[in-house]
């Protein structure tokens, strides 16, 4: 009886931990959101012009001031992305403030939003694209774990940093 209760307790604990881990995976998924203030040309035969200026505020913090052809970015944890845009359509106009809420796809790390297309109410394929980092030639990194374990290659391991670092 006692061992049965114990097994139930262990299973319940594991279940609770798995449930918490699952929740954390959903609510903690981080994304990098990029905002483009660029003209969308020739979408179904029409151009959607870039704004004169857009100020992007995320969680009360101004993250980007975008002139024409500018790109800004912000990080966001979770899937319900919210931002406030202060849009100046033409030079000399008063900025119009808009609250925007976008559902971010779970599997995508970097999301690019074309603001003129999004604010024109176009379908998702017009304003949404996935950010693909440009491939760069990387400097060769020393392979870790290769070499003399005792750090006595030539200099008896006594030169330079002691490897203590900041503890």
């Amino acid at each position, binding site marked *: 009886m006692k061992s049965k209760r114990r097994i139930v307790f262990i299973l319940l604990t594991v279940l609770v*931990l798995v449930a*918490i*881990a699952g*929740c*954390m*995976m959903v*609510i*903690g*998924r*981080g*994304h990098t959101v990029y905002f483009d203030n660029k003209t969308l040309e020739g979408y179904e035969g029409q151009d959607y012009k870039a704004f004169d200026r857009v100020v992007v505020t995320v969680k009360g913090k101004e993250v980007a001031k975008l002139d024409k052809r500018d790109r800004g970015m912000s*990080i966001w*944890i979770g899937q319900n992305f919210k931002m406030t845009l202060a849009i100046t359509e033409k030079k000399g106009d008063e900025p119009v403030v808009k609250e925007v809420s976008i559902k971010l796809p779970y599997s995508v*790390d970097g999301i690019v939003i074309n603001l003129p297309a999004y604010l024109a109410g176009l379908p998702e394929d017009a304003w949404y694209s996935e950010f693909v*980092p440009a491939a760069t030639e*990387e400097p*060769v*990194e*020393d*392979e*870790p*774990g290769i070499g003399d374990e005792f750090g006595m290659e030539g200099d008896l391991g006594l030169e330079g940093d*002691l*490897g*203590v*670092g*900041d*503890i």
Partner: protein
Amino acid sequence: MNQKNNLSAGNSLLEQARNNAVPIMFIIICAIFIPMAGFTPGYLVNEIVTRMGRNLFLVLCLLFPIMAGMGLNFAMTLGAMGAEIAIILVADWQIWGIPGVVLAMILSIPFSALLGFICGTLQNMAKGREMITSYIINYFINGWYQLIVLYVMGSIIPIVHASIMLPRGYGIRNTVSLLNMRQCLDDLLAIRIKGVKIPLLTFILIALLCLFIVWFRRTKLGQDMRAVGQDLQVAKDAGINVDRTRIISVVMSTVFAGFGMVIYLQNMGNLPTYTGHSQIGMFCIAALLVGGASVEKASIGNAFLGVILFHLMFIVAPGAGAFITGDPMVGEYFRVFLSYGVITVALIMYEAKKRMAKSKAGQELARAQKEEGGAQ
């Protein structure tokens, strides 16, 4: 009569000083070094508070094996390795902020528990030589850790992000950035008092662990652990499953070390993949010993005092080294040899005390036998 009282008071003071030689020595060193280093009190307090938040959880997890008489658990590093594997996975899955920290802690549990179980089982096979065994197990498991992180991750365990993978396509980079997790625990609920940032949430977690330790000592399992720590044979005769109790103490220590390592890494904001865990055990043990703990006895107070003194020395040593010799590297060397030296001194003192107690007991037994013989 008065002279006798003075003599006994002097003896007890000497005994106290002898028992607390290491903390007293560190207090003197710090008192000499602080003015030489020339830091402001505000800076020192800020640094100490930050380092307490970073290290205390790790130091406290050493108390469980000491409770069970297994000495200083050098194998707490295994928990740190478990946490590092968990944090690499969490970083690759892009789980950021507090959820990332919580997920890393949960994920570290199976790794740390498994490694703790292996370590506890091996230590049971080497009773009486637990510390050296745990020290060597450390190296053994480190080899496996390197194999997993260097060859299995990316080739068998899927790793998606190129930013944490070596350019060759498998294996993890020397450093993994935890920028999106950096100090998220410390900053949440943080308060500032006269420019000193107090990471309240981290201290709440430390306080919870302290409360758990206090509560645990009073439970049946805690009492069993203490009984095992006092005398293996007596505990066995009393019907306690000695081996199981010892394994549980090591498992608890490694699991909490895993949590502690996650707290440590979120504070640092990056993970040195191949070296992050290697010196954690040594420095935590040194800190605990500096606080006045010994191989067979340690308390929460020792952990707090140790972290404060040890890290105070760490902060001021390079400045003092620069003041004395003009080269901060001397201070750097000084703090390294002091930390290893403190462990050596503590181990020697423990052994010497044990021998003294043994010979004293032998003498008393001989005297008692002599008196008994005389009476007959």
